[in-house]
């Protein structure tokens, strides 16, 4: 997270660019470990991997302050990391351990962290649209200058509450950005089968400032996110951002045989031609902002860091059974 960069200075901001690269790799390495934990049968339940979509979370969250809010989804690890959470407590949460962000009570789909403004992942599709809008409402009321970002998959476009809160946000001129991660599928169904009309028009119809962007290009995401965030922070009202992206893995870690709903070839093309990390790395090298060796080191460093975080999580204890009754009421 940074506040220094102005839109027109991006290309000069080497630090920021390298930081974004690191964050994207961190997400990918984190998720690789999650998959590993699942395969090794160490993780209870399931998890939805963010691999392939890293540029979205990172590009958007870099446009935010630490005190700004985000709400996240069932596919939330990327948002959580991009907003600054630490992997060890995240892994601990995924394993249901006491040291997890939610004392093990939330799990993968409910990680929340007030310190980084993360209002929580949500296992109800579109479940956090109201919450994000409300956070923006309080920002406006308390005049603390904060902005709220609501991440959601394109599947959430099916839920009526999204339109209810966009209407409210526009009427109240709330500083909230609805970020639609269009990864083409909701579970096992292509979005074209569930989404009539035009996505951007669904937001502009309510008066929101809307834009779409290549979600595999972190610089592009960052730039447009920053524009919408600045606008919202100024009091000019809510924004809507469609990021076109792709998930490399299945809907969740257990979704292995996917050919019945999406062709292998499609996956292959996205992975080889449009990988947000590889392409960004190539660009950084071309621009002479980093050399291949240093970029490789980012991967190996973060892999090591994630493994250490996993080890911590595996070793740390479960909550005591009698904690089950705590935290129901504040």
């Amino acid at each position, binding site marked *: 997270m940074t506040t220094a960069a102005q839109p027109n200075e991006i290309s000069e901001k080497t630090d920021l660019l390298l930081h974004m690269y690191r964050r994207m790799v961190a997400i990918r390495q984190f998720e690789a470990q999650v998959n590993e934990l699942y395969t090794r049968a160490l993780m209870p339940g399931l998890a939805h991997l963010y691999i392939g979509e890293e540029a979205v979370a990172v590009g958007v969250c870099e446009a935010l302050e630490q005190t700004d809010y985000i709400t996240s989804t069932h596919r939330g690890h990327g948002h959580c990391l991009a907003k600054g959470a630490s992997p060890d407590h995240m892994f601990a949460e995924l394993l249901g351990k006491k040291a997890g962000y939610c*004392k*093990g009570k939330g799990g993968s789909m409910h990680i929340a962290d007030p310190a980084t403004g993360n209002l929580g992942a949500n296992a109800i599709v579109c479940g956090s649209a109201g919450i994000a809008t409300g956070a923006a409402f309080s920002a406006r009321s308390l005049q603390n200058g904060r902005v709220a970002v609501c991440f959601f998959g394109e599947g959430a476009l099916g839920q009526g509450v999204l339109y209810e809160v966009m209407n409210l946000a526009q009427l109240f001129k709330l500083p909230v950005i609805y970020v639609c991660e269009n990864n083409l599928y909701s579970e096992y169904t292509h979005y074209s089968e569930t989404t009539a009309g035009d996505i951007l028009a669904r937001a502009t119809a309510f008066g929101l400032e809307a834009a779409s962007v290549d979600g595999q290009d972190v610089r592009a995401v960052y730039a447009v996110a920053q524009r919408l965030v600045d606008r919202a922070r100024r009091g000019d009202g809510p924004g809507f951002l469609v990021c076109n992206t792709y998930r490399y893995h299945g809907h969740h870690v257990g979704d292995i045989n996917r050919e019945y709903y999406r062709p292998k070839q499609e996956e292959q093309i996205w992975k080889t031609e449009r990988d947000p990390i590889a392409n960004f790395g190539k660009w950084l090298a071309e621009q002479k902002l980093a050399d291949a060796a240093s970029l490789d080191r980012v991967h190996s460093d973060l892999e090591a860091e994630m493994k250490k975080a996993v080890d911590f999580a595996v070793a740390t204890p479960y909550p005591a059974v009698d904690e089950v009754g705590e935290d129901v009421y504040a």
Partner: protein
Amino acid sequence: MPDTTRAPADREITFAQAIREALAEEMRRDSTVFILGEDVAEAGTPFKVLAGLLEEFGKERVLDTPISEAGFTGLAVGAAMTGMRPVVDIMFGDFVTLTMDQMVNQAAKVHYMSGGKWRVPMVMRTTMGATRRSAAQHSQSLHAWFCHVPGLKVVLPSTPYDAKGLLKAAIRDENPVVFFEDKMMYKLKGPVPAEDYTVPLGVADVKRVGEDITLIATSSMVQVALGAAALLEEIGISAEVVDPRTMWPLDEKTLIDSAKKTSRVIVLDEGYERYGVTAELASVVATGAFYDLDAPVKRMGAMHVPIPFSPPLEDATVPTEQTVFEAARTMCGK
């Protein structure tokens, strides 16, 4: 005479005024309290309960919304998590159907799912009660649903005094609270002190002391029970009327103690009798006073039918002073 107040008071106000005063006082005390709902501002709700609040607090704190119950309830959840204390107005209790995801999957669970890190100090005020000739979609009393959900508190005041004190406590509470007001009680008058007070959530109130039978009643059914108790007194039956006031937290002890004392219990609630509040209260009493009861606990709630429009039919769906009187007399063998 029924003892309907916990403190001496030299003035009487209506139930609606009590609600309004509670809101106004809490909004003065705490600038983060605000009201959100349909036609709450200029109109002050169709029941005029909020009349005057816009004038005092302005439209930044008394907000008219579109007809979007899910959307603005969800907004309230997020606002509550981030420093505000929303009081959401759901005009008719029947419309809570539209808010169930926000209340149950979000508001009720945020604190627990986050391991205690986030809090949702919000109040949803809504209405209940039939016999207004409003038909099936404007007459339900659906509070039992919320009582079933851990993470929520549920309040059903029966007097102006309780309404004011409980609402103030609900607004100050750190948890999501659902507050049900019986539409037919808005004009009910009762003593309410002018001084600041709260009624704690989770403490039942014996509204009338008696010896022969216990009438456990909620919301407007407390008034029905008090009326029935007066009729019973005429035929020599002394009825105790106990009002749990909050369905959750539930003050089981007061209910059970009364049951043990009188050995006979009728539970009254205006929600549907089946799988509703009467079932829980009856079960709690049947268990807690098992060895003291002379007869099965009797339950009286709404008939298992959508509320009909036609007046003679509608009137037959809910317990009345007369039907409660008859049931109690039968139970007491008179």
